[in-house]
């Protein structure tokens, strides 16, 4: 294992994050505060409780998930797309490193960035609502697994993308709608039965449900199903990346 290479890629990618630390931190704090103003204060004042929980607190896990999903995908996609775009990818491809090391470096950095943003949102949320965490270990585990698996997905998008429009396409058209429809701001039990069944086909439902369980000990779907969903998604992405590097698709002519 070429640990120096992994560390180099990781540090290089993280330095991009710290170069723009202002917008990296201010942006999620601002958007979280806005969500609390809109959903927590304006709408939340009409919805007193959901599943016995204060609405402001109820939306926090979904809010964190929504952000880390989009951030993981965007960060990882940009991380590998940008060297492709400016041509510096040659250096990574000609270095004595395997695809596993490349993935650990890029995906690890992207996952770290979104994990940090998730933590920042959690801290910000504590200023607005009382936020107990029933299962701290599982809360961190769900967050970490989600960051990693969606960063893997973002890595695939970054390799696939041929321009900046394509880079934004999947986060905007797939991830955000799935997160909004995945129970970020409501409980599945609030939906008509047909929509409850349809929602079970949305993978994000499992993530948000499992994450909400870690906070409030309440879930829309069994926790084991949530864990299996994340694990399955991660394995699927890893398999796809292995195939990409074996065939050289879009990276090695």
């Amino acid at each position, binding site marked *: 294992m070429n640990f*120096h290479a992994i560390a180099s*890629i990781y540090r*290089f990618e993280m330095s991009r994050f710290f170069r723009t630390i202002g917008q990296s931190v201010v942006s999620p704090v601002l958007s979280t505060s806005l969500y609390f103003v809109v959903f927590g204060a304006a709408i939340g004042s009409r919805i007193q409780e959901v599943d016995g929980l204060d609405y402001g607190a109820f939306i926090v896990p979904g809010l964190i998930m929504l952000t880390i999903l989009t951030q993981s995908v965007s960060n990882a996609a940009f991380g590998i797309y940008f060297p492709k775009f400016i041509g510096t990818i040659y*250096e990574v491809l*000609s*270095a004595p490193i395997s695809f596993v090391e490349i993935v650990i470096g890029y995906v690890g950095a992207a996952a770290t960035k979104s994990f940090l943003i998730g933590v920042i949102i959690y801290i910000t949320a504590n200023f607005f609502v009382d936020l107990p965490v029933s299962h701290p270990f599982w809360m961190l585990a769900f967050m970490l697994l989600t960051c990693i698996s969606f960063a893997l997905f973002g890595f695939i998008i970054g390799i696939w993308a041929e321009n900046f429009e394509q880079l934004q396409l999947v986060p905007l058209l797939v991830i955000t709608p799935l997160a909004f429809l995945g129970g970020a701001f409501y409980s599945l039990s609030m939906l008509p039965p047909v929509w409850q069944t349809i929602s079970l086909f949305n993978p994000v439902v499992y993530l948000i449900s499992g994450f909400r369980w870690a906070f409030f000990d309440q879930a829309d779907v069994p926790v084991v199903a949530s864990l299996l969903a994340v694990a399955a998604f991660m394995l699927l992405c890893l398999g796809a990346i292995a195939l990409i590097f074996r065939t050289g698709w879009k990276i090695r002519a």
Partner: protein
Amino acid sequence: MQDPIISIEGLHKVYDSGFTALADVDLEIQRGEIFALLGPNGAGKTTLISAICGLVRQTSGKIAVDGHDTLEDFRKARGMIGLVPQEVSLEPFEKVLNTIRFSRGLFGKPADESHLESILRELSLWDKRDSRTSQLSGGMQRRVLIAKALAHEPEILFLDEPTAGVDVELRKAMWDTVNRLRERGVTIILTTHYIEEAEAMADRIGIISKGRILLVENKKDLMARLGGKQMTIELVEPVDTIPDNLAPFGLGRSEDGHELIYDYDTTADRSGIASLLSAISSEGLKVKDVHTRQSSLEDIFVGLLHEDGAS
């Protein structure tokens, strides 16, 4: 003969589009030499370098770097190579020193700030170590690429068109750098369009056209073997036609008839110069001046490509 540091056997590359970029390439690069790969655009120079460095997947054939197969033992093979690409590709917002640290780490080498400092000083970039690469001039950016390629102390350095688009001064400075690297035992393979670059620096020349290696030869031998000489005889009075008794010499005539041109072989037992001058004199032609010219590598290159039907 030394054992080669790079050995290529039957290398074939066909792109997905069906274009054959390399066809049955066999090539050996000797340890410590400067090897210049010449060829027209699209000849396969960059594809050949890319295949050795792992940027392009070979369709068939074998490439070994110091005995390490580039596919089966890619870590050892690639670890010995530094690559300076044709295009200037740098992370625009990163500082010079950071980008070089990144390159060293990528090749599995532990941090060595003094080594990086010596590289930057040698390439006159030390003062710019904290500048963003986008703030540098084109020439400096090219030097940063060289610094990046040297950061992990490679034994083999590939320079893909290293002086394309750079001014004369920088080109000479790069030649000096390359010569210093050779003195340290680094094997250098360069592709170039500038024949004078190959002529000035290379120990051996390879000519590639349409994905095939047409010729690989020691530069001096090549020039001696293929490099004929040309003598131009300036006449006081022009001639309309070449006189009959000068016909056996196969002379050429300039458009205005003031010059007679004689090609001869320096390696032949007799050059025929004395008998030609005597024949000219007996013909009553008055000679104003005589000068000779050695064929350049460019003449040889163009001649070979014409034979191959490439240009």
